[in-house]
């Protein structure tokens, strides 16, 4: 701790010494001053586990700076080094060349040493993501066990660079960082069914994720509203289930997204939600859905209870034949990723129980209620998953119903007293699931689509309300599991459900709000001072703008030359913007 305090004081001195006219707005309104320390211009986000930096600095000469690694012909590293050039040296700024005579004040090279010497193709949950980063006057070294740790190290290094007021690229002359994530699973959920997200926007989200060290894209790709995923086995799914033929992800689009993610060390877990949330699937295969009855009348909606038809009919063999073929295809498309998210949430059995065929089926099979039927459906699908060699991720509902799940199933917790008044808290569920031996991921308090205006305002402090709300959530709060259970709480996920977002606003809505959660999932438990963090986040938000992500403001003030609509704005720069 004492080290960390020391570092901040140094960085603070540093910023004052070179930014003579830096204008910091340290209040939300004049009557609401902000507490907390202004950030150094190159403070990394999320905060590394251990960071020590000197107060003097070195310059970088864009023409003579070299970054290289001990791995030759490794696509993950080669692509990163190429990609980060535009991040180190923003394309619309011509950076001054420092005086080359004074070599002691120039950072000449950074060497990336990958200990395993292996060029992994795709990141796995338990992969080592740690790295060490050292800069000593002219030379830097990033040391990592494998390429994924190296990517994290390069990202941190890129954040340590900043452009001085007199337009030199600089960083601290001496830096020592030891860093690793607190949780191995740090996810973003994007919903492309309620509104379609164009591919260029998804790629920008992946860029922003990499800038925040998120490492899982949970792609909630289909739902009741639309089915944009083009299946080669079942093309009718999009022909009938997409909003239009322009609102689809072709196999090429999907591979494009998967590759973009993989090269950034991001896993892509697709979600194909069943047996509920399948109205769009039902437009292609009406016979798979249960006819809901009102009394003796089939296909009758009772709004608030069920629609005419909206849920798969688990009594039909053709449903399982379809699921078998379809999941096989999904497994091949998402070929590196072991997990498929099967949804299995919000199954309300009223429709099933209204249907006479299903009632007969229950009688014949000694089942008594909807939960039994759900168990039957779920165990069939989970068996299919095992037979095709896939692992399952599910929303907690199916586990709530007491269905026996394979032990390697990941359970995603979304329920909480604040969402459903008769539900226990998310910490109860996390403790329970992990104590039963399952890996668990927390999404419940991180529904970022639920926007809220305002200031967190107490006599002690005034802050951006939403930032404060998310930053202050600790995953282990009220956790009651033992040490083994703690290991199985693998992380969390920020969810942007898409009722009210699409290409127009999803980037500015998610970023930098999700960054609060990024630091919570990566950094040490004692990096928890939101008053200081909001200033660092403001710096990070400007950094994202400089990388072409239209991240929204968190504090008052401004972001230099890179703001949207200004001449040097990177938002339309082809290198960060994928519509071209």
């Amino acid at each position: 701790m004492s080290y960390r305090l020391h570092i901040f004081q140094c960085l603070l001195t540093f910023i004052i010494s070179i930014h003579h006219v830096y204008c910091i707005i340290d209040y939300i309104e004049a009557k609401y001053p902000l507490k907390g320390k202004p950030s150094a211009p190159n403070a990394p986000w999320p905060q590394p586990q251990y960071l020590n930096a000197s107060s003097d600095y070195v310059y970088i000469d864009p023409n003579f700076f070299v970054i290289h690694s001990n791995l030759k012909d490794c696509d993950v590293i080669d692509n990163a080094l190429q990609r980060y050039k535009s991040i180190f040296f923003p394309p619309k700024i011509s950076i001054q060349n420092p005086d080359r005579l004074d070599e002691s004040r120039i950072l000449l090279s950074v060497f990336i040493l990958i200990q395993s010497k292996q060029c992994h193709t795709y990141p796995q949950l338990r992969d080592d993501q740690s790295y060490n980063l050292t800069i000593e006057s002219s030379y830097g070294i990033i040391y990592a066990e494998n390429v994924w740790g190296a990517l994290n190290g390069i990202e941190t290094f890129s954040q340590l660079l900043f452009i001085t007021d007199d337009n030199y690229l600089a960083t601290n002359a001496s830096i020592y960082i030891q860093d690793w994530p607190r949780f191995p699973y740090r996810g973003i959920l994007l919903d492309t069914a309620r509104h379609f997200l164009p591919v260029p926007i998804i790629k920008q989200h992946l860029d922003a994720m990499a800038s925040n060290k998120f490492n899982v894209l949970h792609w909630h790709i289909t739902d009741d509203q639309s089915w944009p995923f083009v299946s080669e086995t079942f093309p009718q799914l999009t022909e009938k289930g997409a909003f239009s033929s322009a609102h689809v992800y072709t196999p090429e689009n999907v591979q494009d997204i998967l590759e973009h993610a993989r090269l950034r060390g991001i896993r892509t877990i697709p979600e194909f939600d069943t047996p509920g949330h399948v109205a769009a699937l039902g437009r292609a295969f009406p016979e798979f859905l249960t006819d809901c009855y009102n009394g003796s009348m089939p296909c009758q909606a009772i709004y608030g209870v069920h629609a005419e038809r909206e849920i798969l009919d688990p009594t039909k063999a053709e449903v399982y034949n379809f699921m078998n073929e379809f999941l096989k295809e999904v497994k091949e498309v998402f070929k590196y990723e072991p997990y498929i998210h099967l949804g299995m949430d919000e199954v309300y059995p009223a429709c099933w129980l209204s249907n006479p065929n299903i009632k007969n089926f229950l009688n014949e099979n000694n089942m008594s209620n909807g939960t039994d039927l759900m168990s039957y459906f779920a165990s069939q699908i989970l068996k299919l998953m095992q037979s095709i060699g896939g692992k399952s991720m599910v929303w907690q509902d199916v586990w709530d119903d007491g269905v026996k799940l394979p032990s390697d199933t990941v359970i995603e917790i979304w329920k909480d007293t604040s969402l459903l008044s008769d539900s226990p808290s998310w910490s109860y569920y996390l403790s329970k699931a992990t104590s039963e031996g399952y890996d668990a991921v927390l999404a419940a308090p991180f529904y970022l689509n639920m926007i809220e205006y305002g200031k967190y305002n107490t006599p002690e402090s005034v802050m951006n309300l939403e930032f404060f709300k998310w930053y202050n959530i600790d995953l282990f709060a009220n956790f009651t599991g033992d040490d083994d259970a703690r290991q199985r709480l693998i992380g969390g996920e920020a969810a942007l459900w898409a009722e009210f977002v699409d290409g127009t606003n999803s980037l500015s809505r998610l970023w930098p709000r999700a960054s609060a959660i990024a630091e919570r999932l990566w950094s040490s438990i004692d990096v928890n001072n939101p008053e200081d963090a909001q200033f660092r986040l403001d710096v990070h938000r400007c950094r994202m703008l400089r990388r072409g992500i239209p991240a929204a403001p968190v504090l008052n003030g401004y972001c230099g030359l890179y703001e949207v609509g200004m001449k040097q704005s990177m938002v339309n720069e082809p290198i960060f913007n994928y519509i071209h």
Partner: protein
Amino acid sequence: QNIQQQIELDEIAIKPTVGEPWPKPQSIQTTSTRFAVHPATFYFLTNETSQQCDLLRNAFDRYYKIIFFPQTYMLHLTDPLLADIKIRHLKETLRNVSDLGDVTLLKRLIVNIEQPCEEWPSLESNESYTLVVKREHALLDAASIWGALRGLETFSQLIYPDSDLQFTINETTIYDFPRFQHRGFLLDTGTHFISQKTLKINLEAMAQSKMNVFHFHIVDDQSFPYDSITYPELSGKGAFDRNHIYSQADIAELLEFARQRGIRVFIEFDSPAHSRSWGRAYDILTQCYSEEKPNNKLGPMDPSRNTTFEFLKNFFHEVAQIFPDRYIHLGADEVYFDCWESNPSITQFMRQMEFGTNYSLLEQYFMQTLINIVNATGKNYVVWQDIIDNNVTLQTDTVVEEPYPDEMARVTKLGYKTLLSSCWYLNLISYGDDWHKYYKCDPYNFTGTEEQKKLVMGGEACMWGEYVDSTNVISSTWPRAAAPAERLWSSVDTNDVIEAAPRLAEHRCRYLRRGIPAAPVNGPGYCPTEYSG
């Protein structure tokens, strides 16, 4: 060509209307008779007896692009050459007129303007128009250029893309006029800077919802981006930095951009509070004291010193020359007396003026002196309601803008003209379809006499800048601001959210088609053109 498999959206989402304008005209009759419109054969022209002017010629040029090449339209703002290239490419993909079959072609819109064109729009502008679309000709009649501009917007909204005819319009007769003369939108560029380009996109979005007043809350505590000729250090020291200013050339360009669209630019320089950024360069603020010593904090402007008013006189003299609109907004909101109370020179001044300890009298003195300065320039003024709450008495020609709920009755009873904004603070975001509540809020929704209602000039939607800048201001504002836009334009009985929702869905998709990133507000769904960044 792709055969579009359009799903029935009404099952799962609100289905957009086709070719219905927003805001809804006062009177509209449409039939199912359709006409084709084709860029090769269609043109605008003026009637022989019509008045002519550059505003109209430019509008013809603009609406031709909006109607036929909407996807290139916003690009003209930034890269006109590229936009023209794109138009050329698009022209090659269009079907020939001869391929449209034996459908009747609408070949021209004939415009007739009765009165000579005015140079600048005003509170009194006549925006009424009549539009008749029948067979080969459409006729647009307006008393003034401003009505013609509104009619052209409506005409452009009646034309919809169609798979068989490409561009289609139905036989229609419209008689239309606004319910309120002042239909404003406030943007705050003092808290966060908003780029010139974004301001133009916003003006364009306003014009497409027939909003006619851009309330430019240009400076605030945080920054002073207005580049003053008289006092250049105001932005020199008060702006975030030299890149975050509106130069005189920028201002002139915005004024012209707005004028071309019939939008008034209603400038606000807020005082005596919300003025920290002024004080970075000029010594006009009150020094606050604690325990009888200056504490290095600054409060509202200092009314005890003549130099303050000398400064304001010179400054507002400049403002009056630069901004052509007859109204200037003087702010006068959120004046807290504690700093004034702490300052010994002010105490001395209070004694000298025989104000006792009534600081409302001091505020009144400040405002009255400022109002006299502004009146001497020939301008009228508007203030926020706070000043009335502080028991300050103002002249009866004052216009009071109402930011607090349920106060319209009180303000109009005092005889002041008023503008409603309290229910339209769009920056106060909440989850869900919050436009419903903006749509339901009506400026006449208070208890008062007919005379009191007549004092309501209209209203303003406000987007304060604490949490918005150019990254998100357009998608946060539009189409939410279209709800107050319809409330202020359309008849009082156009107030059914269920009826409005599909039209608003079309309006938002139309914004997208025209290159403005208006966000989804009706829950799940889609637009034929989506926004990719």
